């Protein structure tokens, strides 16, 4: 067993060796530009891209023509939201999203607000779930888009996507879902879910970094987005730029593997996750964040009360975990997602997100259980707050004097 143990698979995953193998020929002999139509280097590259498109479409129940390649989920989210805002400007400028979305969605919405968009940020319940009534009430005649993530990156909560999709369809509003964490981990079916646009990426499902996709529905309704990058008119004019052929081939292979192995991976990982979670919940004053029923199989997010956050991260050095999204972990701010569930700053700080992967072993989980348990106990032994709590002092009743 190698230390540190990597349990931050919601941030990024290791490339599966089989994916790697699939990519290799396209670095070496078949290196053509997929847009070169005058020779077989180009055709071979295009053929490989088309095949990958089919593999990717098959995983999400789409048609291969509905897959637009991008550099990753952030770009896909940008293209979906900005692209709809520009394309459907005549219909309205109201967009609905939620407070627990990834920054790629939230920052893009904030950006559009400056350009005149009206954004409704729906709250979530204490378990991270959206209230369907809130959503229904928020939809207006000028609403052009609802953007709700499939599975949350921090706590793994899976929204009721099928109900949301049905509601949006009945109201004639486009529905975009950031499915970055869900695709490849749980079954996603864009037709049954009534999803019109969906963002996802390879590096969260054992594929390479630097390649992602946007699903853009072509039928019932035919959806269009305004390109955010112009140039050679690749990807049906929606996204220009030389196609990342080896990346696309790797993405395709990763999707195929996910389609074939998702069920068994999910079963194994949810058992390991539950083992980890149940063991850590034996610690006093520890809590799972987010709804446990509707959850990604490989994720758990646990708060340890009366443990100082920064100390906790330092104390679990043998385990690569995060206290929130990687994209915001450089800041010292507590997770806005956990705060949206009603956690106070201290508790949000003392939370750990565990993300398991296809490569996670039981041995690693056993080590993690012992290691984290000891770390939390050690930190609490040093904590005056923990001591007061054990002495029965109601900490909420204390008036802290300011220095």
């Amino acid at each position, binding site marked *: 067993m190698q230390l*540190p143990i*990597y349990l*931050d698979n919601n*941030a*990024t995953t*290791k*490339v599966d060796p089989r994916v*790697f193998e699939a990519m290799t020929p396209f*670095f*070496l*002999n*078949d*290196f053509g*530009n997929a847009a*070169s139509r*005058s*020779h*077989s*280097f*180009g055709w071979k590259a295009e053929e490989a891209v088309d095949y990958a498109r089919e593999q990717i479409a098959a995983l999400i129940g789409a048609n291969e023509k509905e897959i637009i390649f*991008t*550099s*990753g*989920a*952030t770009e896909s*989210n*940008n293209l979906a939201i900005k692209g709809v805002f520009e394309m459907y400007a005549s219909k309205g400028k109201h967009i609905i999203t939620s407070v627990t979305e*990834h*920054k*790629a*969605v939230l*920052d*893009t919405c*904030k*950006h559009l607000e400056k350009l005149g968009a009206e954004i409704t940020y729906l709250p979530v319940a204490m378990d991270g779930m959206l209230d369907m009534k809130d959503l229904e009430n928020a939809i207006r005649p000028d609403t052009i888009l609802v953007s709700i993530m499939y599975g949350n990156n921090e706590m793994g909560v899976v929204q009721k996507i099928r109900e949301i999709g049905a509601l949006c369809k009945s109201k004639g509003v486009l529905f975009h879902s950031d499915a970055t964490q869900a695709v490849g981990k749980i079954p996603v079916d864009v037709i049954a879910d009534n999803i019109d646009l969906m963002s996802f990426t390879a*590096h969260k499902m054992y594929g*390479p*970094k*630097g390649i992602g996709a946007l699903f853009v529905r072509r039928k019932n309704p035919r959806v269009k987005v305004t390109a*955010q*990058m*112009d*140039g*050679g*008119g690749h990807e049906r004019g929606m996204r*220009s*730029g*030389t196609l*990342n*052929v*080896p990346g696309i081939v790797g993405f395709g292979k990763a999707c195929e593997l996910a389609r074939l192995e998702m069920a068994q991976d999910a079963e194994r990982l949810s058992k390991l996750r539950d083992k980890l979670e149940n063991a850590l919940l034996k610690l006093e004053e520890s809590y799972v964040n987010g709804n446990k029923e509707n959850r990604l199989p490989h994720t758990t997010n646990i708060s340890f009360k009366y443990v100082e956050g920064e100390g906790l*991260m330092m104390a679990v*050095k043998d385990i*690569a975990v*995060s206290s929130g*999204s*990687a*994209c915001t*972990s*450089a800041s010292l701010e507590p997770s806005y997602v956990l705060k949206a569930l009603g956690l106070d700053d201290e508790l949000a700080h003392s939370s750990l997100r565990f993300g398991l992967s296809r490569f996670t072993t039981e041995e690693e989980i056993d080590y993690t259980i012992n290691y984290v348990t000891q770390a939390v106990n050690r930190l609490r032994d040093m904590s005056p707050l923990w001591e007061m709590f054990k002495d029965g002092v109601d900490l909420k009743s204390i008036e802290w004097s300011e220095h």
Partner: protein
Amino acid sequence: MDNRIYLDNAATSPIHPEVLDVMFTAMKEVYGNPSSAHAHGRKAKNLLEESRGTIAKLLHCQPGEIIFTSGGTEADNMILRGSVKNLGVKNIITSPIEHHAVFHTVEELAKEGVVKTHLVELDELGHIKLDHLEKLLSENPHALVSLMHGNNEIGNLLSLKKAGELAHKYGALFHSDTVQTMGQFAIDLSQGYVDFAVGAAHKFNGPKGIGFMFCSRKNRPAPLITGGAQERELRSGTENVHAAAGMAKALEISFRDMEKKREHVQNLKNHMMEILREEIPGVTFNGDAEGHSLPNVLSVSFPESETGEMLLFNLDIAGISASGGSACSAGANVGSHVIHALHPGSKRTTVRFSFGKQNTVEEIDQTVAKLKTWYPVPASV
């Protein structure tokens, strides 16, 4: 595909084995997300910053001035769109022979009504008329000049010094699409001639899906992609670490082998011109092929013929890969906008041959021998 002759290196180039090594190692061992605070993340961040540092050092700029993107198209888009948004650009001065990543983006911005476009006139060889550029600059304040360094179709080179000094004389910003020259010439960004430049790794034997934008610290365009605030808030999205490492390695090798490679491809180009002239009467070369031109790009204009339209197809059947123009518009049967700008209405056939370090003189000879069979010399009089 080993027996085929690949003469389309300006479309994309084979990856260098050393680059592949770097990428494979990174993919296997440095798989963290650079934004993660833990050891795996820090290792990835280190590799990313090392790669940035390597590129900055080679180009004589600050690491903070190199922003990673998904490629040249994205970098060009960010510079053009972002400087209209952030830097008060009201006029864009460009040319009719720019790559579509620039040309279509400028068209789009003009359509949105946020800028006015002005096209610089070209001389008969396809070079920018500097006196016309100066005239446009003097008439249009708050301008951004966007002129490519090396043309991807005809190979013409622009003097960055002359164009940049002219732009700056009138207080304009200067962007140069340097996709074709990056790694081929030792571009020294510390000279300050350009405010914005771009690179796409797959044009210099690096990987596809990664490129960069150079922008000086005082002229920061608005971001194109928002989200996790990576790349100094200029470009969000999980960084493509292994590709960035591959790109840095590819640029390093390009600089290391620069003279040697340039000499090699220039020899191939000269050789091809020479024997084409001998073997096929009526052949001409588009642009300033023998003057200020990319050493690896040769745009050949074949005489009008019945089989002209089939020339690329026949070349491919014969195992030779070349292109009619830019790969990025190779799908459309509208002909090259560059050739059209230079020779409107011409019925001659244009083929772009572009060379790489793997090509040999023998390959050129074989190619010309094949071409000759389709353009037989008329029976002697």
